[in-house]
């Protein structure tokens, strides 16, 4: 199998195999979680097929024609970065789906759950392998939509719905900004193709010098920041913790929120090396890192702490990707990419631990916990590994990448000079200190100390192996990456870094590399971290006091106010636009019709009523017309239903006579038969509807209606006599049909040939309408009495 096929399959198989999940459920019952895990494994295998190619520094590309007229193809592009993301997404996917077997109750709607997880995984894979900005946008929004469904999985819980809506509103709006940014980029470069832009140095130079550069950067970065919960957009992530914990682990450790990071890394070669990039990306990153780390103190929900820590950790990544100067465009890229991988491992394992704890103790409130180390020894060990990795304790993998972060910060500070020499490293250390403190809090609050006397179930124990093994697997990875960093750095991180920097990189990561400034910063972090931790509770209490005193000083307040006001405004607007009175709509439509028909007639013709009127017709035609008008008037004016309907069907038969005169035998035949049937249906219906209501028409209403009716009649008349005079010159389509009916379709009856052959697609649609009408009637009749 060639690489392109492998990638295409890796992206689309989750969608297809998730589609048949309801069928699989019939076979496997409650064990469909293993099926879903197998699908994720399949994706991993397919992505891994591509890995050898990209390790050698090559990239793969291929496309299937999709919208040629817009230059948009379904095209995939795989380089080190996308393969790294592909591996992370599918590996964590396997772990999450296996873990869910233990976590999700058998009573839950499991097919829906796994289906959405797989859809989400497929969208994520599709996004990272997209070679085309529009395609990337589509998959990007698909991840927003699927994560909306996943976060709102428990759709009966108001908070869950609130969290899901919030995440959708913020990330999808950000996605629209991103789309605008892509369009600006297209305006600059003239292409949507990512590799074309990446591999052309002259084009990148041109973009950097273009006047729209800043606009494109800001728009795309808003998209990335909203997805990765950076800056003011962070507010959706804490509320998204209402999701089932495996979902949180999947979305917020490795995938959904990393999409923003992926985008930043993807556009890094295009935009980095400029001041704007550093100020925007690193600036937002540093502020978010410290703010989120600080706000984590206040949280009492375990998942809340993890949510804020995720925001803060993502901000690390943003900060590192933002480190750039003109001559050193990618100072923090290696550190960021390595930390990205490490964060996926330890954050996923911590979420899974949080899930285990919540599952066993039936609470997520850290203030109600303590001393669980004796009852849950295995969980305690796994949690400790994860938390210490996050805190940056050697020899775990978090330590390595945090050292690299400090190193990059130190270097960046020195390259900038001036006050930044110390400011940037100091801020980096501050971020590290906060991380250290809340990481310790997680272990201390849950597992150490004394078991509270009440609030916890009496018997708490480690969960079954379905939940332990996936978590333990991650813990093993954490230790392995820490002790033997050359494995991940060589096979996964290095190709990714190369594809971001677009040049060969020789990456060496070691546990010990002498007394460097970074080591000093790490030691400072530990000392300050312990000091801050002793004040943890008083800081949290101060935050709570501040918050209750200034409730309006929060982004959440702004969000809620906006959303609630938007509801009122739109409701007011639509109730004014749609008063619900059918007559208003009908009159509006008719007036529009008159305008649309009359405008071309007035502007395109010399005389509105042409002079070549022809009243010269045989007598029998005149009598036919007279009868038609009489029948029409009868249908309108006869007061009782039955005579009116008889009159209407008389009109129908006269119409079919007229069709014969107009040389349309098929129509005449159809019209006669249809008229018969429609009369029967009319009569059947009015048997059931007694004529109780008799409208009393006031003179004012009568005048208005007659005016509108005459206007419509006049419009049609003018239109018709002008049309038959030929006011607009265009060739009649029917020539084609007449000329080709016999040679192409072998039919003599041109009308029938058009119906079943030339315009067969139309006819298929029309017979579907017939079926729909039949279903509609059936449902109307059989829906009776269901509401009671």
């Amino acid at each position, binding site marked *: 199998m060639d690489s392109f096929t492998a990638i295409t399959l890796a992206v689309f198989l989750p969608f297809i195999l998730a589609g048949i999940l309801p069928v699989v459920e019939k076979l496997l019952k409650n064990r469909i979680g293993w099926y879903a895990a197998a699908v994720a494994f399949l994706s991993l295998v397919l992505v891994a097929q591509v890995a050898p190619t990209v390790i050698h520094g090559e990239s793969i590309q291929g496309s299937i024609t999709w919208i040629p007229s817009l230059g948009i193809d379904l095209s995939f592009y795989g380089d080190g970065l996308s393969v790294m993301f592909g591996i992370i997404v599918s590996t964590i996917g396997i772990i999450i789906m296996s873990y869910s077997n233990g976590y999700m109750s058998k009573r839950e709607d499991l097919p829906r759950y796994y289906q959405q997880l797989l859809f989400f995984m497929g969208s994520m894979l599709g996004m990272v392998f997209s070679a085309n900005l529009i395609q990337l946008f589509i998959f990007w929004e698909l991840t927003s939509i699927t994560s909306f469904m996943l976060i709102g999985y428990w759709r009966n819980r108001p908070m869950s719905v609130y969290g899901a809506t919030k995440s959708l509103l913020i990330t999808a709006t950000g996605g629209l900004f991103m789309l605008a940014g892509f369009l600006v980029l297209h305006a600059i470069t003239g292409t949507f193709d990512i590799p074309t832009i990446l591999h052309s140095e002259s084009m990148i130079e041109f973009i950097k010098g273009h006047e729209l550069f800043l606009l494109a950067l800001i728009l795309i970065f808003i998209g990335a920041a909203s997805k990765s919960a950076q800056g003011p957009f962070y507010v959706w992530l804490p509320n998204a913790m209402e999701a089932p914990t495996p979902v949180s682990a999947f979305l917020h450790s490795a995938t959904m929120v990393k999409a923003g990071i992926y985008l930043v890394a993807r556009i890094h070669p295009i935009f980095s090396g400029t001041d704007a990039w550093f100020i925007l990306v690193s600036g937002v990153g540093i502020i978010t890192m410290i703010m989120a780390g600080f706000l984590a103190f206040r949280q009492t929900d375990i998942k809340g702490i993890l949510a804020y820590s995720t925001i803060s950790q993502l901000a690390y990544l943003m900060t590192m990707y933002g480190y750039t100067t003109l001559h050193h465009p990618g100072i923090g890229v290696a550190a960021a990419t390595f930390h990205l991988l490490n964060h996926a491992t330890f954050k996923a394992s911590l979420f899974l631990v949080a899930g285990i704890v919540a599952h066993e103790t039936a609470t997520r409130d850290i203030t109600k916990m303590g001393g669980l180390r004796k009852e849950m020894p295995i969980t305690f060990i796994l949690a400790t590994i994860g938390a210490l990795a996050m805190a940056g304790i050697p020899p775990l993998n978090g330590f390595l990448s945090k050292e690299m972060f400090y190193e990059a910060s130190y270097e960046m500070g020195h390259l900038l000079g001036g006050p930044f020499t110390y400011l940037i490293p100091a801020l980096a250390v501050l971020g590290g200190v906060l991380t250290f403190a809340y990481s310790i809090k997680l272990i201390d609050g849950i597992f150490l100390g004394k078991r509270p006397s009440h609030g916890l179930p009496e018997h708490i124990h480690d969960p079954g192996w379905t939940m332990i093994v996936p978590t333990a697997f991650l813990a093993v990875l954490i230790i392995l990456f820490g002790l033997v960093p050359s494995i991940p750095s060589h096979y996964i991180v290095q190709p990714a870094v190369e594809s971001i920097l677009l040049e060969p990189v020789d990456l060496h990561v070691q546990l010990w590399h002498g007394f460097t400034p970074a080591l000093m910063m790490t030691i400072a972090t530990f000392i300050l971290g312990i000091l801050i931790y002793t004040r943890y509770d008083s800081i949290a209490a101060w935050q709570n006091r501040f918050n209750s005193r200034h409730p309006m000083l929060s982004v959440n307040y702004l969000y809620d106010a906006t959303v609630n006001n938007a509801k009122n405004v739109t409701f007011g607007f639509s109730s004014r636009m749609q008063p619900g009175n059918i007559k208003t709509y009908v009159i509006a439509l008719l007036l529009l019709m008159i305008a649309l028909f009359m405008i071309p007639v007035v502007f395109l013709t010399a005389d509105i009523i042409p002079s070549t009127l022809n009243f010269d017709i045989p007598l029998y035609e005149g009598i036919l017309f007279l009868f038609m008008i009489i029948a029409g008037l009868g249908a309108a004016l006869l007061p009782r239903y039955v005579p009116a309907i008889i009159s209407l069907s008389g009109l129908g038969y006269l119409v079919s006579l007229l069709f014969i005169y107009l040389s349309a035998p098929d129509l005449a035949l159809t019209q006669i038969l249809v008229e018969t049937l429609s009369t029967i249906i009319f009569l059947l219906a009015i048997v059931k509807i007694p004529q109780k209501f008799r409208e009393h028409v006031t003179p004012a209403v009568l005048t208005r209606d007659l005016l509108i009716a005459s206007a419509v009649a006049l419009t049609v008349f003018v239109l018709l006599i002008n049309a038959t005079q030929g006011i607009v010159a265009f060739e009649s389509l029917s020539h084609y049909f007449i000329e080709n009916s016999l040679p192409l379709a072998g039919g*003599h009856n041109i009308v029938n040939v058009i119906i079943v052959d030339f315009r067969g697609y139309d006819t298929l649609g029309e017979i579907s309408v017939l079926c729909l009408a039949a279903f509609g009637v059936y449902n109307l009749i059989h829906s009776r009495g269901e509401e009671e």
Partner: protein
Amino acid sequence: MNNTLLSLTIAILFGIGTFLVLRRDILRIIIGLSVLSHAVNLLIVSTGAFAGTRVPIITEDGGHGASEATGTIFNDVLAENTLAPITAAGHTVNFVDPLVQALVLTAIVISLAVTAFILILAYRIYEEYGTTDINELRRLWG
């Protein structure tokens, strides 16, 4: 060649249909829609029928065999503003426009199904709310 009285008749049917659609009684509205659909069908067919005289079925004397029919029946000259199907060059065959007939043929059958649907809808509305007055219904729906 045109037929002003036919145009006038169709226009009057349009007026009648419009007047009925503006009533308050649902059943009158449905009758109005039926009248309107007759009028629309006639309008479409008549635009294609004025110029031609022959039924759009290719018969032996009307040029059976592709070679004769191809490209000889119509001779529009757009530059001179002459339009289909005006004159036959060397042929006496003047088909009426088959395309409009095909469109209307399906429209007739569909309008039957749709009329049936809205009639049953009206019946169910009457059953649920006990009235066929749309103003009253608007009040009941709130």
